[in-house]
C-alpha cells in the first residue's frame, strides 16, 4: 500500500479503497458524481430541503433538565436524531445518497444492514425515489430483527438473508459487494456508515455533518457557548462523525466516542476497536482501519446488546481522530447501557436506541464532574422503540414474555388448523 498518507481517501494511515478491479470504473464514476455534488452548492441545498420536508430536520436539541439536576453537574443537552423519519440518523445518509443515485441515473440500490435500521432507511429512500432495492442481512440478524425485515419488505425491498461467515453485519457487507460487482451498471451500493472504501467514509460523513452543523448553532443559541463535551456512540461511526464535525475545530470541546463494551472489554464479548486490546490495524471490507481480528488477520466474532454497534471495523476518520487524541474513546457495557436507558426514560420521557444509550452511559459518568456552566451534548442517534424485542428481553419482563408466548400459540394453532383444512 501507499506510504503517502496525504493521498485522497486517507486519514493518517487509515482509509483507502481496497476494491476489486471490476469496481474500478464504478468507483471512478461515484467519485466524480460525489465530487461534483460536493462542489455544487445547490446539491447541499436540495439535500437540506429534502431532509426538512421529508424527515424533520433540523432535529431539536433538547435540554434534559431532569437529568442535569439528577447529576448536578453539567447541563445535559440531547441532539434528537430519533425524531428523523424512520427513527434514526441513518436517514440523513440514505437520503443524501438517494439524491446522488438520482443524479447518477441509476435505478437500483442495495445495502447491508445489521440491526435493520439502515435497511429500513434504505428501503424507505428507495420507495420514495422509485428505485428497486435489495437489502443484505445476516441470517442471524434476519431472525433477531424480524420487525425490521417485515417493514423493509412492506416498503418494497427484497431482503436477502446472508448465510456465510458469522451471518451478521460484516457478512452482509461482503455479500452486498458481491452483488455490486455483478450489477454495478444500474446499481448503487448505499453503504450505511462512514466505513468502506473511499469515497464512502468522506461522503457519509459529509451527509451526516448536518447533525453537527445544527447542533453547533443550537447549542450556541441555547447555551450561549461551546459545549464542554460531545458524546456519541460508535458503531461504524456515522452518527459520531456527524455530530463531531460541528466541533472538531473547537479545541476546547472534548469529543467522546463510545464503543460497545458488551460483557466487558476484558472479555471476548464486545465490539471495542479503539478501547481494549483485541483490535489491530488491518484491511478488510475495502478499507484500512482498526479491526477486531486474530493474529492471522481473521476477523473475530463481536458482541453488543446493540445490534448497530456489533461490527468489527471503525471509521478510518475516527481511527485517525482517535490516534491524534482529538477524539477520546470509551466503552460502555451492556449492563451500563440498560441502566442508562432506564434512567433516561424515567427522567425525560425519552427512549434512546440501545446504540445511542452507549453515549448516555459515558455522559452520565462525566457530567457529575463538571460545573453547571458547562454544557454537554449527547447525540441520540435513534429511538429505542425499534428495540422492543431486545429491551423487553433484556429487562426480562414477564408480561412481555407471556404476551409473546400467547401470540405464538395463537399463530401455531391457526397455522395447524389451516394445515389440517388443506389436508
Amino acid at each position, binding site marked *: 500500500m501507499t*506510504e503517502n498518507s496525504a493521498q485522497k481517501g486517507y486519514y493518517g494511515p487509515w482509509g483507502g479503497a481496497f476494491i476489486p478491479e471490476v*469496481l*474500478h470504473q464504478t468507483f471512478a464514476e461515484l467519485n466524480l458524481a460525489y465530487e461534483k455534488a460536493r462542489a455544487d452548492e445547490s446539491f447541499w441545498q436540495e439535500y437540506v430541503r429534502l431532509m426538512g420536508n421529508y424527515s424533520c430536520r433540523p432535529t431539536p436539541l433538547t435540554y434534559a433538565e431532569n437529568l442535569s439536576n439528577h447529576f448536578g453537574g453539567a447541563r445535559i443537552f440531547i441532539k434528537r436524531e430519533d425524531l428523523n423519519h424512520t427513527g434514526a440518523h441513518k436517514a440523513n445518509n440514505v437520503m443524501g445518497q438517494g439524491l446522488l443515485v438520482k443524479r447518477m441515473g441509476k435505478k437500483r440500490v442495495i445495502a447491508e444492514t445489521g440491526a435493520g435500521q439502515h435497511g429500513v432507511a434504505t428501503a424507505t429512500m428507495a420507495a420514495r425515489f422509485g428505485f428497486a432495492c435489495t437489502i443484505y442481512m445476516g441470517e442471524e440478524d434476519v431472525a433477531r430483527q424480524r420487525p425490521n425485515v417485515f417493514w423493509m419488505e412492506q416498503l418494497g425491498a427484497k431482503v436477502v438473508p446472508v448465510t456465510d*461467515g458469522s451471518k451478521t453485519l460484516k457478512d452482509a457487507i461482503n455479500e452486498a459487494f458481491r452483488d455490486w460487482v455483478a450489477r454495478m451498471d444500474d446499481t448503487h451500493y448505499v453503504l450505511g456508515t462512514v466505513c468502506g472504501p473511499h469515497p464512502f467514509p468522506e461522503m457519509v460523513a459529509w451527509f451526516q455533518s448536518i447533525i453537527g452543523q445544527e447542533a453547533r448553532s443550537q447549542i450556541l443559541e441555547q447555551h450561549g457557548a461551546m459545549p464542554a463535551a460531545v458524546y456519541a456512540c460508535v458503531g461504524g461511526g456515522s452518527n459520531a462523525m456527524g455530530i463531531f464535525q460541528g466541533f472538531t475545530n473547537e479545541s476546547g470541546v472534548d469529543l467522546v466516542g463510545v464503543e460497545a463494551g458488551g460483557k466487558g472489554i476484558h472479555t471476548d464479548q464486545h465490539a471495542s476497536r479503539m478501547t481494549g486490546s483485541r483490535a489491530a490495524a488491518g484491511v478488510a471490507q475495502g478499507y484500512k482501519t482498526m479491526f477486531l481480528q486474530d493474529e492471522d488477520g481473521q476477523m473475530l466474532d463481536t458482541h453488543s446488546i446493540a445490534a448497530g454497534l456489533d461490527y468489527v471495523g471503525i471509521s478510518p476518520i475516527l481511527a485517525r481522530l482517535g490516534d491524534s487524541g482529538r477524539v477520546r474513546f470509551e466503552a460502555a457495557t451492556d449492563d451500563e447501557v440498560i441502566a442508562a436507558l432506564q434512567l433516561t426514560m424515567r427522567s425525560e420521557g425519552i427512549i434512546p436506541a440501545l446504540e445511542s444509550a452507549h453515549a448516555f452511559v459515558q455522559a452520565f459518568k462525566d457530567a457529575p464532574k463538571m460545573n453547571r456552566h458547562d454544557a454537554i451534548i449527547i447525540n441520540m442517534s435513534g429511538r429505542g422503540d425499534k428495540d422492543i424485542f431486545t429491551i423487553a428481553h433484556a429487562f426480562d419482563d414477564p408480561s412481555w414474555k407471556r404476551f409473546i408466548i400467547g401470540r405464538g400459540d395463537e399463530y401455531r394453532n391457526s397455522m395447524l388448523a389451516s394445515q389440517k383444512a388443506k389436508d
Partner: protein
Amino acid sequence: MNLTADLRKRLETKPILLMTHLVLGYPSLEVNRRVIRQMAENGVDCIELQIPFSEPMADGPVIVRANQEALNQGIRVKDCLAFAEEMIREFPQVNFLFMTYYNILFRFGEELFIQRAAEMGMKGLIVPDLPPEEGETYLRRCREQSIAPIMFFTPTSTDDRMREVADHGDGFIYCVARKGVTGKQTVMDASLAGYLERCRKATDLPLAVGFGISRREDVAMLEGRADMAVIGTATIRLVDELGPDAVGPFIGGLLG
C-alpha cells in the same frame, strides 16, 4: 525462469495452458495434497493456492464456504505457508501461486510475506482486493523478490485502465470473464470475444481466463483467444462430490 517466460515456453508446445485452484485446508490439507498430485500428474501448468480469509469479498458461494470451513477447522496462515513450501518442493513442474486477500499479507507483514513466498519458490501472488493504487509497496517488493503480482482485467476496464494495470503486473493477466463473483457459468459470445480481443491488445502478458469451465468444449473455446484456462470452483465441487481421485480424470478430460 520467471513466470511469464515459463508460460511462454509452455505455450510453444500446447495450444492452451491450464490453471487450477484450491482452498488450503478445505476439506483438509491431506485432501489438498492428493488433489494437487492429481493436478500435477495430469499436466496442470499453474495452481492457485488460496489462503483462507474470513472476509472473502470477491468470491462466490462455493469458495466462500470453503474458506469458512477451512477456518472452522483451525487452519492457520503458517500451516498454509509450510504446506505450500512442501508442494513446491514436491511438484517442481507446476507453477504455484498464492491467492488471498490483502489482510493476510498485511497482518503477516507485507514485506515478510512476499519474501517468504519468493524464498519457497512461489511464482506469483493474486490479491483481488489490492488494486495497484493501494499496492505501491506491494508491487515494489514483488519486483524486488521476482515474484509475479498478478493483475486483473475486467469487462468494465477501459483500454486505458487495462494498459495502466498491465504495466504494474507480471506473470500473466487474470482476465475476469464477466461481472460478478467466481463460480458462475458464462458463454462465449460476441461480447466476451470482443472483450478478450481488447485484453490481448492491452498487454503482451499471457492472458488467463476462467468462467465456470467444466468440460473439454469450454477449454477448446478459449484456444486462440487466451493463453490459459482457469478452473475455479469446478474442482472444489468435484472433490466434494466424488473425492480427490476424480480430479485427475477430470483434468485429463479437459485437455482432450
